[in-house]
């Protein structure tokens, strides 16, 4: 029994246990313990984070001539750590007051199912991450898909259900694409084992690799929600019950990235992918993937900008941030991939914190609609702080961890001389800054609504995990080296030169980064700013929000004096027309096409003259015979068996 066995077995048993006790209140405590223990097991494997040898599971399966096995390498461990830690935070978040309220509003059963869905998600992700060959990868992949579906399915609202079914259709498309790719891989290389495929890749032609990369890319890309498959994700994640959205938003879609790294980076290797030139363009396959990443950073981010619901805004950002990871990984040098992989960690921390904050706001106010919020900072200051720290991370501003990974991506693009990709990434970042300000402003700043005068701070059980995440966001922002160690090990595992780094960042001849210094100086600056502010100026008086400049107008609670609708009106005047919902229309066109074909087929089956049809078929067949066949001379004689024997067995 290896540690991996322990981990998988433990999680599986825990799933069973949680499903069994789902109707009891103790399920929340049980789940916290489960994830805590799973974290401990992962920590026991921590050698993997520093370049240890892969750990194999002793359980293997031999079916239809394929040997399925499971193992953890540094990359899997990195992803697994994020998964389990986020699950731990989520389970704490959903254990106390949130659980009580959810049980009241829905039922204990519903809450138990949420816990069950969470643990099944974790289990399936661990299985996926542990996969050692393409078949086990696919099995894990589908388990993850369906576990996600289960999570989304828990919300019974119509919108949520619609999103869930959309998801499942997309997920099926992904699965089918991957299955096709796996089948083709098998027929091209004769194996589904990573190592053997890696050896066989050298013999494949460029077209074959291009085809495989496309199919795998489509499959895994759908899960990541990359352009043009981004439509399903935001609604599906946003409508999941609070903690579910936290977990799914933070890590679920990243499984696509994991698989993509394994397949495209580790097995096919990016140099091989880069060697595939696309005819009639200057691009190669790697550029295409990088551009998909870049477009994914832009388009969903700007869709997020238009959202009027905090959950949707965040979920759309989730889609957009995936683009950075893809972009980073596709840069293919050690800095870029480090940025891409590190962004998974950073993103998971702040996205979880952001969703938690939004869930906390929903918990207290019952809404996440921007038009019905505002001014909550006085009521929920700690939640506000969590959100601010997280959006600083999301926007990639120092000293939070999001900055480091984005810096690495930018740096790599700079050194690579990719101006357009760089600009695309920056456009994405700027859009992020715009929309996160909208998020924090419309939720926490501005005028407090009358009905929210008595709103309280989020309960401790929800606050503690948020604050914990804030510590991680800040801590790994100041000392990115902690995470970069693991990233370097993961890079090593997939065959990329690991990034050279130190605790504060990386040191390069042509301009490095040392976050400890950067943070230090920033706080020095803030200290100076505070001295200037608090000691050089006089005393100030905190005043009521109605005591506000309104051109001489007297403000009362009757008239709302708050700006949240059409938040970027000026910008939208210009770019509003660019939102043509192109992809949505494309999707609708596809549905219409299916509908049309379906009607055609139905007409066939409904036709009243089936016999005529068959007769027509028969006629064609007969005509076929008459035109090509003449009767042999010796009709009617039974050919002796010896004739066959003399002829020998057919070959």
């Amino acid at each position, binding site marked *: 029994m290896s540690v991996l066995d322990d981990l998988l077995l433990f999680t599986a048993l825990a799933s069973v246990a949680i499903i069994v006790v789902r109707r009891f209140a103790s399920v929340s405590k049980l789940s916290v313990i489960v994830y805590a223990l799973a974290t401990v097991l992962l920590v026991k494997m921590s050698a993997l984070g520093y370049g240890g040898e892969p750990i194999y599971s002793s359980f293997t399966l031999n079916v239809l001539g394929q040997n399925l096995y499971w193992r953890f390498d540094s990359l899997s461990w990195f992803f697994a750590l994020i998964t389990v830690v986020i699950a731990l935070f989520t389970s704490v978040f959903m254990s106390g007051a949130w659980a009580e309220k959810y049980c009241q509003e829905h039922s204990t059963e519903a809450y138990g199912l949420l816990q069950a869905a969470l643990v099944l998600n974790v289990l399936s992700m661990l299985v996926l991450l542990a996969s050692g060959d393409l078949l086990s990868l696919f099995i894990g992949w589908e388990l993850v898909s369906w576990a996600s579906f289960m999570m989304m399915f828990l919300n019974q609202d119509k919108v949520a259900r619609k999103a869930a079914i959309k998801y499942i259709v997309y997920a099926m498309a992904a699965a089918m694409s991957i299955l096709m790719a796996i089948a083709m891989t098998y027929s091209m290389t004769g194996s589904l084992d990573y190592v053997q495929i890696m050896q066989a890749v050298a013999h494949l032609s460029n077209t074959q690799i291009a085809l495989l990369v496309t199919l795998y890319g489509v499959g895994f890309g759908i899960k990541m929600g990359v352009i043009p498959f981004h439509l399903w994700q935001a609604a599906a994640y946003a409508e999941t019950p609070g903690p579910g959205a936290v977990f799914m938003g933070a890590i679920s879609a990243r499984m696509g990235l994991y698989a993509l790294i394994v397949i495209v980076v580790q097995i096919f290797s990016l140099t091989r992918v880069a060697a595939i030139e696309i005819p009639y363009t200057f691009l190669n396959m790697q550029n295409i993937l990088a551009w998909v990443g870049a477009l994914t950073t832009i388009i969903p981010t700007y869709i997020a900008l238009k959202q009027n619901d905090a959950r949707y805004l965040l979920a759309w950002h989730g889609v957009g941030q995936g683009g950075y990871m893809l972009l980073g990984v596709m840069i293919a040098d050690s800095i870029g991939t480090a940025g891409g992989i590190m962004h998974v960690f950073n993103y998971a921390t702040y996205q979880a914190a952001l969703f938690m904050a939004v869930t906390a706001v929903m918990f207290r106010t019952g809404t996440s609609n921007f038009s019905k919020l505002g001014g909550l900072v006085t009521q929920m200051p700690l939640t506000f702080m969590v959100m601010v720290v997280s959006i600083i991370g999301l926007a990639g501003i120092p000293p939070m961890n999001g900055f480091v990974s984005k810096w690495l991506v930018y740096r790599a693009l700079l050194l690579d001389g990719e101006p357009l990709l760089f600009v695309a990434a920056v456009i994405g970042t700027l859009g992020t800054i715009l929309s996160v300000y909208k998020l924090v402003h419309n939720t926490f700043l501005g005028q407090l609504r009358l009905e929210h005068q008595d709103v309280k701070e989020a309960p401790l059980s929800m606050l503690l995990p948020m604050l914990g995440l804030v510590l991680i966001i800040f801590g790994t922002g100041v000392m990115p080296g902690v995470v970069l160690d693991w990233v370097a090990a993961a890079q090593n595992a997939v065959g990329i030169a690991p990034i050279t780094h130190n605790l504060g960042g990386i040191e390069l001849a042509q301009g490095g980064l040392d976050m400890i*210094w950067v943070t230090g100086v920033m706080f020095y600056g803030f200290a100076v700013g505070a001295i200037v502010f608090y000691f050089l100026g006089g005393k100030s008086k905190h005043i009521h929000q109605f005591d506000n400049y309104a051109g001489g107008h007297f403000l009362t609670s009757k008239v709302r004096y708050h700006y949240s609708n059409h938040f970027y009106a000026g910008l939208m005047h210009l770019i509003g027309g660019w939102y043509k919902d192109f992809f949505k229309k494309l999707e609708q066109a596809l549905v219409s096409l299916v509908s049309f074909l379906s009607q055609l087929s139905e007409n066939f089956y409904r036709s009243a003259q089936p016999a005529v049809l068959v007769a027509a078929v028969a006629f064609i067949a007969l005509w076929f015979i008459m035109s090509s066949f003449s009767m042999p001379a010796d009709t009617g004689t039974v050919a002796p068996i010896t004739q066959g024997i003399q002829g020998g067995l057919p070959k």
Partner: protein
Amino acid sequence: MSTITELLTELFLMPLIAFMVGLAMVLMLRKIGARLQRRVGPPLLQPIFDIVKLYGKDTQVSHGLIHDIGLVMAVGGYVAAEIFLPVPGMDGIADKGGIITLSYVMMVPSLGLALGVGQCANPNGSIGISRALTAMLAYDIPFIIVVFGVAAHYQSTSLVGMIEYQQAHQWGIFEMPLLAAAGLFALQGMMGKQPFEIYVAPAEIATGPMVEMSGKYMGGLFVMQTFQLYTAGVLYTSLFLGGGSNWFEFLLKIFVVVAIPMSVAFVFPRYRTEDMVRIMWKWPVMAALIGIAFVL
């Protein structure tokens, strides 16, 4: 030991110098404006008068803790940013960050201000911030292309490295004239001067973000403005004009850099937000992209 003393001196001196020079720049700005309008303009110490008066106000309103912290971040962020900007004889910690870090550190004051203004609960302020952020989206794209081009040209993101290169070879403006032009254009937007000052729009949204700022809050913004002008000047000088080998040359350059947009500013009315975005995404971006094509 000497390095630590040196660093401590730099930590203290660099923001201080930035403030002093910034004050002079504000004065220059107002003087240029006045002269263009055939006025005399303010007396020499007017920027100091304003700031001292604002800090000396007896009462001032705060809309809450975030309002205060926002101002701390706004000033503090720039204080920090100054330490990333190498000046003659002082590099600060420019080698620990480089140009990318600097451009992101420069967002911290904006973010702080945006948060502070947000808590004022005044829609004029929020509208101002939304316009300011849109403006940032507008000018940052050409600016970042310029930064990319420059960094790609020098094969470095370190400002110190860039300056050294230019002093050894040739100024960036001669090697990359298109990028320099685009950078100047973007600079105009970055400093929030006409025709790109829609977000302060005094008449319609009551100076936007500043609407609820009084006393030391407003004073903080004045201080921030000095830093802002100084930073813009120094950044452009470092990228294109070879920094400065001595203080005289350096100051001359940064004043010239700031003077150009100022002179342009007062002969323009202002663009609407969308027109600003449109123009920023059209000409400077085009120039910068062509410039990059030459550089690469």
